[in-house]
């Protein structure tokens, strides 16, 4: 795959301070926005704890200023910038994807 930027929807398709799941090349990606859509992040939708496609439905927030998502199933926390698993226990990190917003459209790079 190339460095091509792929459109995954409009800003208004997403709810503020929440996640939404998008499908790109058959892959499920969770896209989050924080601080009223001023910052955007994308990670895999699959929670590596119990392999469920649920992360986009997790609550987001921050830990000491770093944005994070809490899985809706068992509350494992992941750093949205790096994908790092930041809770107790031995759980894999997440794959993250570059995101950009241009003229109201959200683009992802499937690197």
């Amino acid at each position, binding site marked *: 795959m190339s460095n091509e930027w792929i459109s995954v929807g409009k800003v208004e398709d997403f709810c503020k301070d929440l996640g939404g799941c*998008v499908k790109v090349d058959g892959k499920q990606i969770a896209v989050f926005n924080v601080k009223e859509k001023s910052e955007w992040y994308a990670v895999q939708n699959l929670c590596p704890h119990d392999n*469920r496609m649920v992360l986009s439905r997790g*609550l987001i*927030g921050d830990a*000491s200023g770093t944005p994070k998502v809490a899985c809706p199933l068992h509350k494992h926390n992941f750093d949205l910038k790096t994908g790092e698993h930041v809770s107790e226990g031995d759980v894999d990190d997440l794959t993250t994807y570059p995101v950009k917003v241009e003229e109201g459209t959200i683009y992802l790079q499937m690197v």
Partner: protein
Amino acid sequence: MKKKIIVIGNGMVGYKFCERLKEKDTDNQYQIITFCEEPRPAYDRVHLSEYFAGKSAEDLSMAKLEWYKENDIEIHIGDKASSVDRVAKTVTSEKGLTLEYDKLVFATGSSAFVPPVPGVDKSGVFVYRTIEDLDDMMEYAKDCKTCAVIGGGLLGLEAAKAAQDLDLETHCVEFAPRLMPRQLDEAGGTLLKDIIESRGIKVHLNKSTKNIAGDGKVTAMEFADDTILEVDMIIVSAGIRPRDEVAREAGLTLGPRGGILVNDSLLTSDPDIFAIGECALYEGMIYGLVAPGYQMADAVAEQLVGRDASFEGADMSTKLKLIGTDVASFGNIEPQVPFKELVINDPHSAIYKKLVVTEDGKTLLGGILVGDADAYGNLLQLYQNEMVLPEDPMQLILPASDGSAPGGAGVSDLPDSAQICSCESVSKGDICSAIEDGACSISDIKKCTKAGTGCGGCMPLVTDLFKAKMKESGVEVSNALCEHFDMTRQEMYQTVRATGIKTFDELLEKHGKGTGCETCKPAAASIFASTWNVPILEQPSLNDTNDAFLANMQQDGTYSVIPRIPGGEITPDMLIIIGEVSKQFGLYMKITGGQRIDMFGAKLHELPEIWKILVDAGFESGHAYAKSLRTVKSCVGSTWCRYGVGDAVGLAIRVENRYRGIRSPHKLKSAVSGCTRECAEAQSKDFGIIATEHGWNLYVCGNGGMKPRHTDLLAVDLDEETLIKYIDRFLMYYIKTADKLMRTSTWMDQLEGGIEHLKDVVINDSLGINAELEAQMEHLVNTYECEWKNAINDPEKLKRFKHFVNCEDTDETIEFVDERGQIRPASHEEKKQLVEV
């Protein structure tokens, strides 16, 4: 030969002087003689009103007669000192005694000031000062229907309460444009008036009485504005006048408007004569409170045993309970320096609080608290010690629900010299050393320091101090919700209520930091819902998965659907609808433990379609996903069962429909049984109800789950209306005071005073909050709305009910296998096989 001290007046201060001198005079150099005009030794005038509530004169007495004997104090009861000969140094009494003194102490107190209005001498006009006054009033009131109190100050309001307790229609007439004009500002006075009127006392402001009419007996009051108020009885409470008549005759210097002039040593113009208490005039001021009087008594006793002591004026800060309402004021609310005001004005909860701080917000200058004065002790310390305020001083007046002093400047910031208990002059240092010396409970501290044994007003501070010291030496407990909010759930609840904040963003901006997390967001969402009852999806970004999609997420990311079936009663037609929906969407069905039906395996995008059918058929959300009322289980009760004595199903339906949807710190379960055989297992519920021959028994705080707990019996044989009222109060009190995710059973286990305390609150209104709790519950009940009905009609809310934002596909990773004729989620192994096949 012992030196003779004569004390004229055996009131609260005169008595305290005797007590203090006896304690300090270890060499036994003094002989104390006291004249007591009243027919009994000193009693607690401050709590005089409790005489109406059934306390006897005996209960109120400061010390029994034996005490005077044991301490070798010569007391002349019912004998008034009528003159003093300062040259011969003698006191002569009405009964004809003449006794010599070395030192003389005036503790003659004050009498009620009766304004010279024509007609005040008619029968039916009373003052409120002594036990005899009260006896006379009670006797006279037997033939009366209405009573007016002249004076809307502290004492006037207390007298009004007394009149009300005598079953009289009560009016309070104040000359000034507001109540408690000396302590309160306009907004505080207005709120107090509203509260007091809501308790049935009619308040008349700006009224100056020009005549008291009646033929020998009071029949009406005539005011300067020519209005008339018909009354059978009047209590005058227009201020006090120092009792200085004996001092005047003895030639002591008095103030221009009365009062025996004293200096810093409390000496009068005669170096052998002191004056203390309400008869003493210090720097132009009569201190009409008991605490300064005690300080004076202490200072004189100290001097007599040869130590340095003086009186330097006292703070007039006060906190009182007036007609069931906390009222407190301290410091200066209109200071001469530039200042800022911080105000909470919440007429809905009947709370008004104002802090006056310096312009830089660093120092507290004064304040007013009406409706909730829990913060008083803490604020008084901050004010008296001129301590630096926390960054957000507003925190200081956001009430803490658990009765402890609210956050902010804690007791640990106080200097060691800070006086904690003024009654007994106990400093923070004294208490700390008591703890260091091994005092390991509050009662230990009371025993060895005497702190809190006077009026008890300092107990919240003593408790805080104790806790803080314990924490220092042992386990550190942080009560903060999470890193974003330095407050407990209870504090957040109070903050939201007091400030009217309705959105998370505002709450975060004003009281938190960062962007929130999975702990504080749902806590805030629940609090917004239990306070303002706006549909939970109005702020979707706050809710845990369950609340966010109004359904419980199951292990595979699918959801369950549980409609409400109140009391477990369902018609065949409704049952068929559930069956049909389940069939249409291929859902798994099971009867739950709460007498209703669960459908599993619904995918996110199917939820709105499923609920549309259910809602159209008349079902409502069952809130199985929420921290709120789940089910009210019932047995068939007297309707069918041959043992039943009460209509269990009928009541269960009423209860379930009343409390449905109300968000609480954790889930709530309930049950109703039709008789004592208890088939509905009500005694394992958060609140359970069992029918009796005479009504209903109410049980609370049980739990079935992980840590089973049987309920405690709260009340017996209630009629249905009282039952509902008690449940309203119980639930709101729990919502108000429990920590996040704390079930009622754990809440009860940590509730100070346990079930007895709860009974006191719910049944006896010991905190005076029941009206408020009921009103809050009424609001929640009246604004109930089915969340699913609300959601399916709102495209914006439904936007998130699809798996992908950018296409209409569904989640292909969800797979089911067949089991006993229904679906179940495929395991990870099974999924692999399915893919391989």
